[in-house]
């Protein structure tokens, strides 16, 4: 007997499974602007590179009439493929099959591909689109989530983990994305929450829509759970493919270098920055003026925009940028911006990406709400992250570096490798206004014209302390540079830091302020 019949049978079986939850269910999803799980995988991966596994897995539910149901692939597709010809592991939950609900076998498929990603040291991309735990499978589905979270944690800092929220992701399920490095959301499609609007209404009487509670914009702007926000799935996949060009495949490698290219011709950097430290400018213009091709991939653009984080390239190599944004809240540090920057610094450090810090901040945001929200605990994260980072760390102080902000933004004292300052940089314990009011309080109070005296003392303080030379005289600043030298100085600093090798005290792990 020839194998022909078996082959035809196999094809038929596969064809059946590939229908997922059937045409009707697929159509319903399409109306919401959603692609099918398989289409999503194919859109992210290189053409014809997807190889699927565990297609014939069947669900394990034996109660509540579930034993008679056929759930194709148990609601999840797993496999491997390539992006720009480099290997990745991927899974996608299929909402058309039992609402993408997670049961024992569904979870086992996911953990199988996670184990594979970790073993092979390749990135893991997870597409989440699921109604949550499969209630009929009881504690087995909880076990499944637990196994996934555990693997997310093991893989953290070893391989890049990317979560794409393309549908609901509710209850315990949200914790897998929360444990991963980058979370992508799409407007009107992504929904993430621990307790849904229904429960909130019945228990607490608060009436809120799903979109307002945990929609894409909420997570990109308010909660900080999402790192990339897209208008539709296509844009989201482009963002993923762009991000992946900047990051290494695992923690033992470096990001793939690109051909070096100069920044696009733009305004001189010194023209972007007003001399008056109280007048804002868009720090992104500075970043784009110094990166290769003026390209910059901003991360968490909408959350805590008073600090900017993201990737650019310098001489072809990936660099992580952390920069204060004077355009928003004068660039202050606060609870949210500290969280945002600290986690990014740790990401860069884990994946061998040098960090360039561009500094211009007046200090921490004042307010009872900030103090009570724990700005001490949150602000400490930045100090911790910079201090423990062993990748090359370069700082450029553009204008202001006052007080605790000066220390926190990768100062020499936290072991920055190179610290540069522009000639008008004010490096001081606080701004001239605040300092003059304290230091010369008596003189100002006793003067005939206190206001005139105040202004005079501010000027005096400015000349004496609010400049880069006091810090340079102590060696805290390595060099005061001309603004136009910024790119060339950073390039050189990166070049000579390539073999940086320092060791930290041996420990199991630190206890960072969470």
């Amino acid at each position, binding site marked *: 007997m020839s194998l022909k019949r078996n082959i035809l049978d196999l094809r038929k079986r596969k064809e059946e499974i590939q229908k997922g939850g059937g045409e009707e269910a697929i159509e319903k999803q399409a109306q919401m602007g959603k692609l099918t799980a398989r289409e999503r995988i194919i859109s992210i991966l290189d053409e014809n590179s997807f190889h699927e596994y565990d297609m014939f897995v069947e669900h394990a539910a034996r109660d509540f009439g579930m034993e008679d149901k056929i759930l194709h692939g148990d609601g999840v597709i797993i496999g491997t493929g390539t992006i720009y010809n480099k290997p990745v592991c991927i899974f996608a939950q299929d909402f058309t099959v039992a609402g993408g609900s997670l049961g024992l076998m569904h979870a086992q498929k996911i953990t199988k591909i996670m184990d594979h990603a970790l073993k092979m040291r390749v990135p893991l991309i997870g597409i989440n689109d699921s109604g949550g735990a499969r209630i009929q499978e009881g504690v087995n589905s909880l076990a499944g989530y637990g196994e996934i979270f555990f693997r997310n944690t093991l893989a953290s800092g070893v391989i890049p983990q990317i979560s794409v929220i393309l549908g609901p992701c509710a209850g315990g399920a949200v914790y897998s994305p929360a444990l991963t490095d980058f979370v992508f959301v799409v407007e009107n499609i992504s929904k993430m929450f621990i307790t849904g609007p229904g429960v909130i209404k019945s*228990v607490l009487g608060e009436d809120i829509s799903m979109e307002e509670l945990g929609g894409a914009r909420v997570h990109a702007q308010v909660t900080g759970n999402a790192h990339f926000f897209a208008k539709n799935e296509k844009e989201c996949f482009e963002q993923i493919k762009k991000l992946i060009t900047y990051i290494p495949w695992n923690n033992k490698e470096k990001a793939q270098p690109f051909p070096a290219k100069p920044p696009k011709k733009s305004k001189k950097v010194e023209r972007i920055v007003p001399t008056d430290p109280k007048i804002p400018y868009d720090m992104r213009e500075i970043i784009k003026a110094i990166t290769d091709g003026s390209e910059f991939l901003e991360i968490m653009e909408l959350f805590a925009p008073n600090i900017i984080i993201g990737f650019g390239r310098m001489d072809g190599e990936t660099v992580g940028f952390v920069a204060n944004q004077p*355009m928003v809240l004068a660039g202050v540090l606060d609870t949210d911006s500290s969280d945002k920057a600290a986690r990014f610094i740790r990401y860069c450090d884990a994946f061998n990406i040098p960090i360039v810090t561009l500094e211009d901040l007046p200090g921490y945001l004042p307010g009872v709400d900030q103090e009570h929200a724990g700005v001490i605990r949150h602000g400490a994260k930045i100090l911790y992250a910079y201090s423990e980072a062993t990748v090359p760390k370069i700082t450029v102080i553009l204008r202001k570096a006052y007080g605790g902000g000066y220390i926190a933004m990768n100062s020499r004292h936290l072991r920055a490798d190179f610290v540069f300052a522009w000639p008008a940089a004010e490096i001081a314990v606080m*701004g001239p206004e605040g300092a003059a009011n304290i230091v010369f309080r008596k003189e100002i109070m006793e003067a005939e014209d206190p206001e005139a005296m105040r202004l005079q003392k501010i000027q005096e303080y400015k000349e004496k302390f609010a400049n880069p030379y006091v810090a340079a005289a102590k060696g805290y600043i390595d060099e005061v540079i001309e603004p136009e030298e910024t790119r060339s100085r950073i390039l050189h600093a990166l070049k000579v830091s390539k073999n940086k090798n320092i060791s930290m005290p041996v420990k199991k792990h630190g206890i960072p302020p969470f």
Partner: protein
Amino acid sequence: MSEEIKLDHLVVQGAMYKTTLTPKFKHRKAWKAPNPNLIYSFIPGTVIDVLVKPGQKVKEGETLVLLEAMKMHNSIVMPFDGEVVKVNVQPKDSVSKKEPMIEIRPK
């Protein structure tokens, strides 16, 4: 800047900076000192029972209100010896968080 952006002000350590403000910052709640003579709901829920009347003398620790929230019955108790001034809730009322339920005064 290429496009015109409307700038606000932010004072940090005595200096006034021109900048934009985030929605989160604009919507932050101003802090108010709590009034010790107001008993607030600490959680949204439903009033099951009100055990006191205006003018009633109450000892510290006595229950004023039974509030059901998250399927739990919570006894809201008198924080010090005193008198009930005003009662703002009645049984079956649903209250949101931080609603002043009862006004009291010390002995």
